[in-house]
Every structure is written in C-alpha cells, then in structure tokens.
C-alpha cells in the first residue's frame, strides 16, 4: 500500500551532478582523449619547464640540499632504485590490502544502509565525521596498540579509504529510478534481482568515483603513516633521505609517489570508460 504516485518527469535518472568534485565528467576530460598535437604540446611544455629549472638551478648555483636539479633526481632514481624498490613494495602491500578491506566494508555498508532510509539518516553524521577526520591522526595511537609493523598502517589505510568509498557508493545507490525498478518488478523481479540488475549498475559510476578517491586517500594515509613510525615504506624513505639531506634521492621517492597517484587515476579512468561510459 506504499505505492508512490507514478511520476516520470521528476525522477529522471541522469541527474549526475550530485557531487561536483567527484563527478565522472572528470574522466571525460582526463587522459586518453587527447590528440597527437595536444600530446606533443604537453611534452614540449614539460621539456621547457624541466629544462628551465635545470638551467636556473645551475645558473644561480642553488645548493643541492635546497633544490636538486632534475638531472640529479633522475640519476638518483636510477642509481638508488634497487634500494627504493623494496620500500615501494611495502607501501603497495599496505595500500592494496588496506584499500581492499576499506572498499569492501564501505561498499557493503553503503548497499545495506541505503535500503533503510531511516537508519541512513541516523548514521549520516557519523559517516561524515569519518570522512572528514584525517585518519593519519590515529596512527600514533594505532602504533601504540599494534607496534611498528604492517598492521597499524593497513588499518589506517582502510579507515581512510572506507568512508570515501562508502559515501560515494551510497550516493550511487540512492539514485532510485522508480520507472526502471517498476520495469524489473513488472517481470516479477525479486528484491535481490532488482539490486543486482538495476540498483548496482545505476550506482556503478559513483562507486568507481568512490573507489578512485578512496585509493588516493589510502595512498596519502599509507605514506603519512610510514612517516610517523616504523623502518620501512616510501614514507619512511622520505624522512630518512631528508634527515640525511640526500635531496636527489628524496625527490626520486616523491616522483615515484606521484607516479603511483597517476596510475591509480588512470586505472579507474580506464575501468570507468569500459564499464560506466553509458553515463557520460
């Protein structure tokens, strides 16, 4: 008896502008849509900037410990990579396992909580609190409890990624299109079928956005946690190199980290293009 008045004009599904920062349209203007000319221009600009910095640093005899020239960073990257590589491995382990835990929990919670609007309203402020609190702040506490191993870092990554995944996925799951659900019901679809065949695909673009942001936040938190304590990981390399004033090596690690971030973005961009391109 709780039927809603059938209304089509108001329940349009294409209302994808809900979260401006996280909209999938960011994907459309991302990599992969550039012409050869644009790529050439981007490379030219990079060459000019890097060359300019190199030239300026050498011209003004800027000391190495303030800002190493790009060439020395590149040399350090190749020279020290065998030493840095294991740390990259540690960071990846923390990132991947923490993110996997956070993403699974976030997705399940989002799927469940959006089925109960009342419960969702109650829980919403706490989720917001989890999203806005920098989970890095908990790392010293986690280290006290779990020591200097993987555990506190993985927990921190999961805590950082989970809420991001959850809040975006929940936005996706809330996008109810009554006409599409009615379509499924008219063929006798069960609640579970409606979830897998209608709600989940409709939520997928927002889920991907959540996963991408969650992964980036996870990377930030992993590196941050490594800087707080423990003897391994890329974050730990950053503190070690800077304390030894080995700036070329320091920037080599920074370069690896930004590459990781870009790879995360490209990965989800490609997944989005393959599985959620109907939205754009």
């Amino acid at each position, binding site marked *: *008896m*709780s*039927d*809603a*008045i*059938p209304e*089509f004009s108001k329940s349009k*599904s294409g209302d994808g502008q809900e979260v401006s920062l996280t909209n999938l349209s960011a994907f459309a203007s991302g990599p992969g849509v550039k012409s050869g000319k644009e790529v050439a221009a981007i490379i030219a600009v990079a060459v000019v900037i890097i060359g300019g910095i190199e030239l300026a640093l050498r011209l003004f005899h800027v000391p190495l410990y303030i800002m190493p020239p790009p060439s020395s960073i590149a040399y350090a990257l190749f020279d020290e990579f065998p030493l840095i590589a294991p740390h990259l491995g540690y960071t990846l382990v923390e990132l991947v396992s923490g993110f996997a835990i956070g993403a699974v929990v976030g997705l399940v919670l989002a799927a469940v909580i959006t089925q109960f609007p009342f419960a969702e309203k109650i829980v919403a402020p706490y989720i917001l609190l989890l999203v806005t609190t920098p989970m890095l702040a908990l790392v010293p506490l986690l280290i006290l409890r779990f020591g200097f191993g993987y555990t506190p870092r993985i927990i921190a990554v999961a805590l950082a990624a989970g809420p991001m995944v959850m809040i975006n996925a929940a936005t996706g799951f809330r996008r109810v299109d009554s*006409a*599409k659900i*009615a*379509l*499924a*019901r*008219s*063929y*006798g*679809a069960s609640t579970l*079928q409606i979830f897998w*065949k*209608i709600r989940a*695909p*409709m939520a*997928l673009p927002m889920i991907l956005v959540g996963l991408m942001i969650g992964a980036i936040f996870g990377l930030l938190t992993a590196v941050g946690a490594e800087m707080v304590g423990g003897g391994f990981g890329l974050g730990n390399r950053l503190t070690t190199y800077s304390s030894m004033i080995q700036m070329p090596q320091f920037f080599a690690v920074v370069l690896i980290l930004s590459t990781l971030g870009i790879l995360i973005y490209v990965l989800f961009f490609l997944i989005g293009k393959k599985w*959620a391109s*109907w*939205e754009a």
Partner: protein
Amino acid sequence: MNAGETTTPKLGVQAATKIYHTASGDLLALDRCSLDVRANEIVSIVGPSGCGKTTLLWSMSGLHRLTSGEIRLDGVKITGPHPDIGIVFQEANLLPWRNLDANIRFPFEIKGEKPDRAWIAHLLNRVGLDGFGGKFPRELSGGMQQRAAIVRALALKPSVLLMDEPFGALDSFTREEMNRLVEEIWLDTKTTIVFITHSIEEAIFLSDRVVVLSARPGKVAKEYRVPFARPRSLEIMATKEVFDLTNRIKMDIVGERARPKAPEQERASAEIVRIRP
C-alpha cells in the same frame, strides 16, 4: 461475472479505487473506476492531466495495489505483476548500461528463461531495428528507443499489452509512424492493447474504443466506439466523422477542466466520495 454477460472480458476492472498516502494527506486517484477490455481489442484511455490514467494502468499491470476493487485477467484476480501482461512505459525506459540486445534479453534474465531468438528477430525486423542490437540506448533516436521498448514488451508474448503514453515524448511525425507500427503489430499478433495517451487523434486512430476518464478522482466518464475498419489510413483522420468525434472527446475533457471550481468545493466533493460505501 454478471448473469447477462456471455463472455469473460480479457481484462476486467471492477470498482477500482486507489488512495495514495502522501506527506500532504491522502489523495484519491481512482474512484470506483470500472472498465472491461475484451480480447483482441485496442482500448485507449484519455482524460485530463492527473486524472489517474497511469495509476489505472499500473494497477492493471499489478505494479500497484488497489485500495479497493479488483482487476481480473481472464476472470482471475490479479495480485501482482503477471507474465501475461506486458508494459510499454513512458519514455522507452531502456536500461542505459545495456545495449539493445541485452535490453531485450532483460525480461528473460529476470525470469530465468531462454530468450526466444527467432521471435525476437522477427519482432526486431517488424519494427525496423535489424542490425541495431549492439547499439546502446543513447545512440538511438527517441522513436527507435520506443520501438526497442515495444519489442522488449512483446518478446515474452504477453496476451495483453499495456502502453503508458508511450509516444508522448516523440515529435508528431514519428508519433504517426509509431501509431501505424502499433496497428501493424496488432494486425500481426492481435494482442489486446490498453493505450494511455494525451492525444485524442492518436486514441481515435488506434482504438476500437476510447474511454474518457473524469478529472481526479478518475472514473469512467464517457466511452466512444471507433467504427473504422483496419488497417486505417491517415486519410480517415481528415473525415468529418473523426473531426466530430475528436471534438466531442475534447469537450468531455476540456469542458470538465474549464468548469470553475473553488478549492473548498473540490475538497468537499472528495470527502463525500470517500464517505460513500
């Protein structure tokens, strides 16, 4: 069934009443609306905006439960969505993440049945969508999307097809084309069709009977037979008979809407209606 009736109607609506419980109070959408649709018949339902046409159709499909009254398919009361009833929704309502083939497969996936490929190919050919199976809805025009939706609805071979303002969003030329297509499909399958529309011309062109619903709460106000033989040509739409019929139906709808009504009176009449047994 009443004693006088010789045949069971294909779809029988008996004293259908529907009250929506909304935040701003109860809303009586249908008030003891009764209507019989015979087998192989095309019946159009027209009426002023918000008169409960869609509510009536959704109730016929089993998607909505009536507050009181009942809907019978071949004499058997409908309690939920029925496999023998297909629906074509407003604005094709295709799933945008599925290509055309996958959209048409959707009902079979839900039911866990194997799609009848030969029949689907026949339907696709009938509506002129051959070779578009790999296209996504966004790549198709509005008319093509609605054709695909018709194929999806007919793929399960329903004996009743409910069409809820299916061509409302299309331009008038595409709409005429779609009307002819519906008639062709009907000549082909003889599926019983209940058709909701805002367009009186469309209703007359397609239907054996046009049913006019009153303003909310909806009940059957008038009923007109449309006597023309099929297949109908567009020329009959220019005859005086059609012109007169169109005007009569228009007056039924507009005349009622044009009558000035104070809000108090409206509420009072709704009250009276609800008190009646």
